[in-house]
């Protein structure tokens, strides 16, 4: 029966090419626009560390004085001060922990063909690599002992390794950074967490840093800090924040494998705040937060408002296109009343007619979906040419491809429901009488 309906549908669609083309075009435009924006939204709201994001937490404490404090409303300090970061790191109360900040280092290649250049760096502790599941192409991470020993070791990204060492195994080689010699111990594999959840103040999307150096060593060498520094009270200014100044400029991440461990850690943060208050360092009542990766991204509103706005507009656009298709489909089906009347008179049931008409609208949906897919690919190509940070990430993945077709098919079947039902209500006798 399906084959027969298909043949009827094709015949009917072919009979009125303009109307068919209009319907297909309307669905294609609606699907194309919505899939473009939905894909961007999907990419941007993705999980940067799948499988780990629910066990990674960003603890925050509030070391500031009472000025501007609103009980119950004030958010704790966005970043960590050196003292708090070091205290929490050394307390080792989590399954894994790492203290880090962003930096900018001058890379002075041995290769004289290359001029010295600046590279974004991450100053961090050994926990960073195992905690975030960072893959290595060559070598390995440095150890906690290297952190303690202020070792002159460096881990570089695959991109930087390509640039400096032609992509070969560079472990053991020497690299001059900001005037000091470092030994390369590891080269990262393919690792591009997006959004860059661990330091959203640097940038939310894009390439991660090229150079990874132990935090302790970076301070010895006097490498430039690059990121936001928030001071309170009589905090200092200047490029490299001092370790004792009341300034927050580090990010602290912990791994807590079970929810009960997370609850215990939160209690620990409260105790820590109380203890620091007793010591006179903190003045506010304990004000702590412990957000996991997705909560942290959500709190930071990582997905730009522009993107959300575009998504809503595109969905509104799809709605108009659908209403349009319903109208056109209604016109098309009603015009075929005489033919449907004949089929009814010859014994076809209402259900059979309904099914036949739905096959026809489904066919329009498939054609529209294919068109929409092409338009979405074009749309994403246009998005990638935009200047936004996230632009290069806008690609259609298999899941979204499936969603495209389901959306198109569902939308056109939905659009076909009302017209098909109306067309089935025709009294066959009336139609046979006329013409």
């Amino acid at each position, binding site marked *: 029966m399906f084959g027969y309906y298909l043949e009827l549908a094709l015949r009917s669609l072919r009979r009125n090419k303009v*109307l068919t083309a*209009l319907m297909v*075009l*309307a669905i294609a*435009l609606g699907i194309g*626009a919505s899939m473009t924006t939905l894909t961007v939204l999907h990419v941007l709201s993705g999980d940067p560390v799948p499988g780990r994001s629910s066990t990674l937490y960003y603890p925050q404490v509030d070391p500031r004085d009472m*000025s*501007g404090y609103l009980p119950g409303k004030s958010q704790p300090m966005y970043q960590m001060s050196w003292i708090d970061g070091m205290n929490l790191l050394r307390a080792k109360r989590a399954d894994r922990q790492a203290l880090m900040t962003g930096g900018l280092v*001058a*890379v*002075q290649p041995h290769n004289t063909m290359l*001029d*010295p*250049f*600046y590279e974004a760096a991450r100053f961090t502790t050994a926990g960073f690599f195992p905690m975030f599941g960072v893959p290595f192409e060559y070598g390995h991470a440095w150890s906690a002992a290297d952190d303690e020993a202020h070792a002159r070791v460096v881990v570089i990204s695959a991109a930087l390794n390509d640039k400096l060492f032609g992509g070969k195994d560079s472990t053991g080689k020497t690299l001059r950074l900001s*005037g000091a010699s470092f030994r390369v111990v590891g080269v990262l594999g393919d690792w591009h967490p997006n959004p860059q959840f661990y330091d959203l103040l640097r940038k939310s999307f894009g390439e991660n840093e090229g150079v990874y150096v132990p935090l302790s060593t970076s301070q010895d060498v*006097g490498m430039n800090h690059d990121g936001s520094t928030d*001071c309170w009270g*009589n*905090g*200092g*200014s*200047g*490029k*490299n924040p001092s370790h004792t100044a009341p300034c927050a400029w580090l990010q602290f991440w912990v791994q807590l494998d079970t929810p009960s461990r997370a609850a215990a850690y939160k209690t620990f943060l409260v105790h820590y705040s109380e203890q620091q208050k007793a010591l006179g360092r903190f003045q506010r009542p304990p004000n702590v937060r412990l957000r996991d990766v997705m909560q942290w991204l959500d709190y930071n509103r990582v997905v730009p*408002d*522009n993107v*959300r*706005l*575009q998504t809503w*507009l*595109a969905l*509104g*656009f799809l*709605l*108009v*296109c659908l*209403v*349009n298709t*319903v*109208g*056109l489909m*209604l*016109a*098309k089906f*009603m*015009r075929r009343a005489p033919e449907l009347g004949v089929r009814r008179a010859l014994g076809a049931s209402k259900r059979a007619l309904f099914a036949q008409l739905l096959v026809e609208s489904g066919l329009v949906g498939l054609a529209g979906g294919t068109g929409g897919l092409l338009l979405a690919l074009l749309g994403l190509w246009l998005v990638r040419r*935009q*200047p*936004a940070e996230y632009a290069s990430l806008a690609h259609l993945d298999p899941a979204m491809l499936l969603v495209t077709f389901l959306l198109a098919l569902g939308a056109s079947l939905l659009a076909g429901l*009302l017209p098909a039902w*109306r067309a089935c209500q025709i009294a066959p006798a009336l139609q046979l*009488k*006329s*013409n």
Partner: protein
Amino acid sequence: MGIRPILSALRRHKAGTLLIALQIGLTLAIVCNALFIIGGRIAKIERPSGLDERDLLFVSTSHAGLKADTPAGRAALAAGIQGDLTALRHLPDVQDAYETNALSLSNINWTLGLKLSPDARGGAPGAFFFADDHTLATLGLKLVAGRDFKASEIGRHSLLGTLEPPVVIITKHMADSLFPKGDALGKQVYFVGGATKPSTIIGIVQRMQTGNSQSERDSFTWNSILIPMHMLEPARYYVVRAKPGRLDAALHSVPAALYAQDPLRVIPDGTGADAGVRSFAQIRAQAYRGDIAMAQLMGVISVILLAVTAAGIVGLSSFWVGQRRKQIGVRRALGATRGDILSYFLTENLLISMGGVLLGVALVIGLNLWMVTRFEMAHLPVPYVLVGAVVLLLLGQGAVLAPALRASRVPPVEATRSV
């Protein structure tokens, strides 16, 4: 010709009527909001920066080997900057130049703030720019009160200590936010970040946009502070004003002159936002690229939406005309003129469109209220809704014209065919 027969005919086509009205309403709602977004972005792009933007160049230079943490290093950097500036100011293509850390709209923005006493909590936030006695002339800033920096006032800063310059020049917006009575000139202010020595406001410029082109807050957009200091940094910027009409020549001669001063420095190549040499026109275009893209997208969506809606009206109206050929024939046979038939369909469409527009206005207001809370957008002004409504009514009339004309050409003899 009365409206009553049209209404009773529409009652027999409820589904189609409602669909067209709904479509017109939704289209109106989306197009109005899209137009409003476009209008907002254009207004944002057209804000004057306060600079005389023609003939301005922004040059980035760095030298990875140099450092400012020793006295010898600082002396070398200071000498390098002085050498660069002398070379630049003597170029035949160049009118004036100065060294700095950032420029209006450049997306490079160093913010600190000013407060009225060292112990004050709060103050006014502001973007600061290292400047010298050539800065006002180079940028073409308008001084509304006080005076320019003197050559003897220009100090040095290696970004290591607290900022506490003896004198500053600030924008009028910043002056008014610190001293609402308008008596900022000559007053003492303190830099946020631990300054204990005051800075005297010696000049107020009318307007100078910060490096931030995207902030919604006026204080982050218009609060700028000029600091009379050379920034002793291996990574720094030069702002150059080319002589009138010699910008293109300066695009080449400026980096060449800088390389002649220090062959080991890096001025990045390229044409994008990372380019080492950018004209202000490029900076402006890059600063607002996202806004331009958004406005274009909204424009394209609106046009396509209007086209889709028009096509939908044409489709349904054609169907109705086809369905009613007999009735039209009867009316024509009974004496109705072609004009009567034409005006019947035009009026019918006008009625449906007006219903749709009413629905649309309700949707527009609802949608806008939602966007105001959701995306911190402003309330939609009435003219946008009126323009949108008129556009859609005209669109409806235009779309129905072809089917209506076809209807008016139905011959009276149609009445005699069948039934």
